[in-house]
């Protein structure tokens, strides 16, 4: 028995070098692309560029996290991209109205955020109830809420970005944690050092955009939720076998509704982030395909559309891979449409790896 157990352990260890490589191929591929673009891309290998890649990936990361939960249950959420836009225009128009009615800037911003998030939660609730209670396939249910989200956001914004918002949104959204002025040695947190004039801003080294903190906190929270809690365990179980989950006494209906509400909550949050970063309430354009890139990132991270598997951090790597490709190809002077070809190829590779080694993940 002892010998046998030992032999099995040995076998596992040996296999694990390969399986660690294969499980995390997207991560190694990400490292590889960074190395390649560092040679080919003009100004690619620079602190500013790396920070801006992650900064601009914030909303995509949130959408991918949302999609990860949904895809693990065996569903798909097509609405996230347009819920992002709905949240942005709903909160922006609320802020605009309240600020125009002489509310204070913080009050109108806070109320605006609440309205945007509430609109997003409503979308998830509708989709979740349709899926869990009325057994509508997730594809159709979220296609429905996607249509509603598009219609409502166009109704609110009339097809134009919403401006005239309370001042200071972008100051918060694009703030850095640390500012250093190498020439004078001055430094400060969250704002440029008082000794530095506005025209010297180019000389500042800015470290860690505020979005890093947001993303770090949310990745940590959602990773914990998926990995260490009953909620996460039941999410995997539902994706693995609905039948087994029902018979184990899991309230699968409630759980599925919560999953879709969580998904649109994260999408709504992404809309708020977009509002803070851009300073205008942008609706999602039809060609944006935000939800498709989120799904692609999750699949590249090793999840399966059949459900039952997926990891938050792997999905995050998937997003970063797509963003690095976009940025790196651009800086290497490659025409933009090649990016779509690259994404398509990587997606196919991801699915082929999943098919060839189904037990790895």
């Amino acid at each position: 028995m002892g010998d046998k157990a030992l032999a099995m352990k040995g076998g596992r260890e040996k296999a694990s070098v390969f399986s660690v490589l294969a499980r995390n191929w997207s991560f190694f591929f990400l490292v590889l692309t960074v190395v390649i673009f560092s040679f080919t891309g003009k100004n690619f290998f620079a602190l500013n560029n790396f920070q801006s890649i992650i900064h601009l990936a914030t909303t995509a990361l949130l959408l991918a996290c949302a999609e990860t939960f949904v895809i693990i249950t065996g569903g798909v959420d097509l609405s996230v991209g347009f819920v992002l836009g709905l949240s942005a225009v709903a909160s922006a128009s609320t802020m605009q109205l309240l600020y125009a009615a002489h509310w204070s800037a913080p009050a109108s911003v806070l109320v605006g955020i609440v309205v945007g998030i509430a609109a997003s939660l409503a979308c998830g609730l509708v989709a979740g109830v349709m899926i869990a209670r009325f057994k509508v396939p997730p594809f159709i249910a979220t296609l429905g809420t996607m249509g509603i989200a598009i219609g409502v956001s166009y109704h609110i914004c009339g097809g134009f970005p919403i401006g005239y918002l309370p001042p200071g949104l972008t100051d918060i959204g694009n703030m850095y944690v640390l500012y250093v002025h190498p020439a004078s040695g001055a430094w400060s947190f969250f704002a440029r050092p008082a000794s530095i004039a506005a025209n010297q801003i180019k000389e500042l080294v800015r470290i860690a955009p505020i979005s890093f903190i947001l993303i770090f906190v949310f990745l940590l929270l959602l990773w914990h939720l998926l990995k260490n809690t009953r909620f996460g365990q039941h999410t995997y179980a539902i994706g693995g076998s609905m039948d087994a989950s029902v018979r184990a006494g899991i309230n699968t209906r409630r759980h599925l509704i919560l999953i879709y509400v969580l998904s649109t909550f994260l999408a709504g949050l992404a809309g708020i982030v977009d509002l803070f970063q851009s300073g205008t309430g942008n609706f999602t354009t039809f060609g944006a395909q935000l939800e498709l890139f989120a799904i692609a990132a999750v699949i590249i991270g090793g999840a399966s559309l059949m459900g039952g598997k997926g990891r938050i951090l792997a999905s995050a790597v998937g997003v970063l891979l797509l963003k690095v490709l976009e940025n790196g190809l651009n800086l290497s002077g490659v025409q933009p449409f090649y990016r779509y070809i690259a994404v398509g190829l990587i997606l196919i590779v991801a699915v082929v790896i999943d098919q060839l080694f189904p037990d790895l993940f």
Partner: protein
Amino acid sequence: MGYVLEVRNITKRFGGLVAVNDVSMGVQAGEVVGLLGDNGAGKSTLIKVISGVYKADAGKILFMDKEVQIDSPMDALAMGIETIYQDLALAENLNTPANIFLGREKMKKALGFLNVLDHAYMQKESSKILEKLDILIPSLRNRIRALSGGQRQAVAISRSIYWDAKFLIMDEPTAALGVAEQKKVISTINLLKSHGIGIIVISHQMHDIFQVADRMIIMRRGEKVAELVTKNTNADEVVSLIVGAETVTK
């Protein structure tokens, strides 16, 4: 004599069809009863009444000598009546401890305030129960998908036993298993029997039933047609009862 579980005059109709007609039976502690019959004889309907999936139109269920009301599978589980269906109802993407504890996960406090899954505890308890049932699973961390049919069956059985099953219903436990694995399941059933658990086994594998069952109950067209003591019967008699004597004489 004291039955762990007894059903009296159970009748279940689906519209005009009488699926189970006035059937009574009982199982003692530490006894294995084989439930036999052709397809559509009413075996599955009967066990679904016991496990709370269907509600009987007439008749009563006694558990530990007390009349009980079983309205849902959860009621049955809470009493200690566990059913292992043919499809086992395991989440194949999760590992053994996760399946044994599915829906009843053990939590612990991390950092003093975070409620997190206690993987170590669940793993320890799982290996204990598997050891108790004399089942070897190469690595508990492997997903169910990586296990053989017999090992999956073993996990399903362990889950029931861990949660204190006093009565176990097994639907075709040896179907779709290799010969060696069938033997293993049979010996597991015998082990459970020695722990004093009452068991109903439904099977088409006559050979297996003769190996494990103390008594056999044979159903045909919704009715109980015979109750036999395994020692005093043989396969020919059982088969003729299953298909119906008139068919045999024809």
